[in-house]
């Protein structure tokens, strides 16, 4: 009997040795004369256990991790004999960290072979498209609107309304664009889903194409994600071969095809209008809005531009209905959010859960506190443009409005954990420095403000007229927040102001800060 073993090909799993483990398993099997089949999957998202490998058994998959190449032989023996092993984690489905999640978008990630359409359809894939083809444009739009889905890239704009605007626009050509320029530190959900279940993104984009009447789509992936680019390209080819992309998709009257485009290291291209400029072959300079991309987007045509996670949520909404999705969540934040726990955290990874869970539960309970074992002092939520929250705000529920009410944002759902050795004035300085490095240069508040911000924070850190210089930073932040064209300059004040507000003791001459860290 052939033993089916699942080894992730996810870039983060590979970064901690998954390829070596796969190679080691092959060697060990050959030496023992055991017949095995290695299936390369995505990651389940339990990164502290990566490389986590699984074996198919009659009771379900049994997981082992974190496995090193030198342990591949002994793990294989335990798989063959169904015996004990120090790295044996039991049935994957029974792992508490997974059981506590609500995996709608990530249901298949880490489970299936991401390059196999057959595996995808065997795990409920393309059911959403089948229903979408039955429903037709108007009913799809109604369904997406009723689901309450909001843009998962960070802005939180209702997806249904965006799609409706494009559907109603009259044009000879329309485009579907997937923003896969996931540049925020602490976020990796886009990368994970593109590597682990790219077809769900393809299916979501295809449904969008049918809904608004577009036959061409682009996926703009950042160059820092070569594994995601390869996985996405392989999945597009597979979908084309199976008739799910190209002319007359799924035997219908609709044509839809996709192309991957690769970014070139500019963070600002994650901003939608800058991304469109880049796709058109130009510098990634932000466009003034209006016109909205829904009216005049890519090549001046009506364009749906959504984040990877927004598209990944669509197949479930269509297959199981808007209500099934909207039943999860709280207030105006409906459905689930794939939350990413990162940085100095014991249990880092992807945790998809309904909106409403508190920040404290996520960091202390699910994340297990810091990896260093020191107390958590601050968390940054929502990437480099997100606010730093102290423990005092850990009762904040994870939802768009609740974070906004406390001068923060959930952004793309990344949470970076810092222990008590963090120097918050240094983090504030980095926020300004990052903005200065990545600014596209079009608007003055962002271009000049960020550089002046770095200089002023340096003066504060040197103990130079601290109170006056803090007032300058606050004033600068105000100008950037209200005067910048896009979120880069407009949101850089979030990390800076939150650091100032909640960690004021770190802003002053070095000795004070060092004492604070003791």
């Amino acid at each position: 009997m052939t033993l089916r073993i699942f080894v992730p090909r996810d870039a983060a799993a590979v970064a901690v040795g998954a390829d070596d483990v796969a190679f080691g398993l092959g060697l060990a099997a050959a030496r023992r004369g055991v017949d095995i089949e290695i299936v390369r999957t995505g990651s389940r998202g339990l990164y502290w256990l990566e490389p986590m490998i699984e074996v198919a058994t009659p009771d379900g998959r049994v997981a082992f991790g974190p496995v090193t190449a030198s342990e591949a032989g002994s793990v294989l023996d335990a798989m063959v004999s169904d015996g004990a092993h120090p790295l044996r984690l039991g049935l994957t489905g029974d792992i508490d960290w997974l059981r506590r999640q609500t995996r709608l978008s990530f249901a298949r990630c880490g489970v299936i072979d991401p390059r196999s359409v057959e595996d995808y359809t065997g795990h409920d894939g393309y059911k959403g498209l089948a229903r979408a083809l039955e429903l037709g444009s108007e009913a799809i739009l109604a369904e997406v609107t009723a689901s309450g889905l909001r843009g998962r890239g960070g802005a939180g704009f209702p997806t249904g309304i965006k799609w409706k605007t494009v559907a109603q626009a009259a044009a000879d050509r329309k485009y579907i664009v997937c923003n896969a320029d996931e540049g925020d530190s602490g976020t990796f959900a886009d990368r994970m889903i593109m590597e682990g279940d790219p077809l769900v993104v393809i299916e979501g984009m295809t449904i969008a194409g049918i809904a608004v009447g577009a036959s061409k789509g682009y996926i703009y992936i950042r160059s820092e994600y070569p594994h995601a680019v390869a996985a996405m390209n392989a999945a597009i080819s597979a979908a084309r071969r199976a008739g799910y992309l190209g002319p007359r998709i799924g035997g219908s009257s609709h044509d839809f095809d996709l192309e991957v485009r690769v970014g070139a290291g500019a963070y600002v291209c994650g901003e939608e209008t800058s991304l469109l400029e880049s796709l058109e072959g130009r510098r990634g300079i932000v466009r003034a809005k209006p016109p909205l991309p829904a009216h005049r987007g890519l090549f001046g045509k009506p364009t749906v531009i959504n984040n990877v996670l927004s598209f990944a949520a669509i197949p479930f909404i269509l297959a199981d209905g808007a209500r099934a999705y909207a039943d999860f969540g709280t207030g105006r934040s409906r459905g689930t959010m794939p939350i990413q726990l990162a940085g100095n955290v014991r249990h880092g990874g992807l945790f998809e859960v309904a909106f409403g869970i508190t920040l404290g539960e996520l960091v202390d309970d699910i994340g297990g506190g810091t990896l260093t074992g020191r107390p958590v002092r601050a968390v940054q939520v929502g990437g480099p443009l997100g606010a730093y929250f102290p423990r005092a705000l850990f009762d904040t529920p994870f939802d768009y409005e609740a974070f906004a009410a406390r001068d923060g944002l959930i952004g793309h759902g990344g949470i970076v954990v810092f222990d008590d050795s963090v120097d918050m004035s240094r983090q504030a300085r980095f926020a300004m420095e990052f903005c200065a490095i990545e600014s596209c240069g079009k608007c003055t508040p962002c271009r000049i403000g960020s550089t002046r911000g770095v200089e002023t924070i340096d003066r504060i850190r040197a103990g130079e007229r601290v109170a006056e210089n803090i007032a300058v930073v606050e004033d600068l932040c105000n100008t950037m927040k209200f005067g910048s064209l896009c979120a880069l300059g407009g949101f850089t004040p979030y990390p800076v102001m939150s650091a100032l507000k909640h960690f004021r003791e770190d802003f002053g001459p070095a000795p004070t800060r060092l004492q604070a860290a003791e």
Partner: protein
Amino acid sequence: MTPVYEPWDAARGGEIIAGHGHLEGATLVILHALQEAFGYVPEPAIPMIASTLNLSRAEVHGVFTFYPDFRRAPAGRHVLKLCRAEACQAAGGDALAARAEARLGIAVGSTTADDLTTLEAVYCLGLCATAPSAMLDGRPVGRLDPARIDALVAEAQR
């Protein structure tokens, strides 16, 4: 794996440009393809792209210089990218970057005198739950500690 590049050749460059010229918004695609072939974007290619795409040389130059990925000159034999963003900072990445700089005797953003190693900063590899992380010649490496960064630097000097 160390990438192997062709020396610049105008005819070969022209072929690459022509091969992508039909695409919508082809500039970035062409620049990537040239860099993949030659290891950098040779200056003579800029007017060639401009003429194929019916753009001005200034426009193509503007695009080329806007994006940090595109190189004006070949990189070192190995390219070691260290993630310097917040998640890696939280996990001690700054100290490891300083260690790599000290071992190589160069600052992030430069190449060793023997052209063996280019050390670069990258703002997020999406390996934030296995931080601190790096990428050596396209291969991701996570959970870096002093021993692993030393091994990585040694590998980048071969």
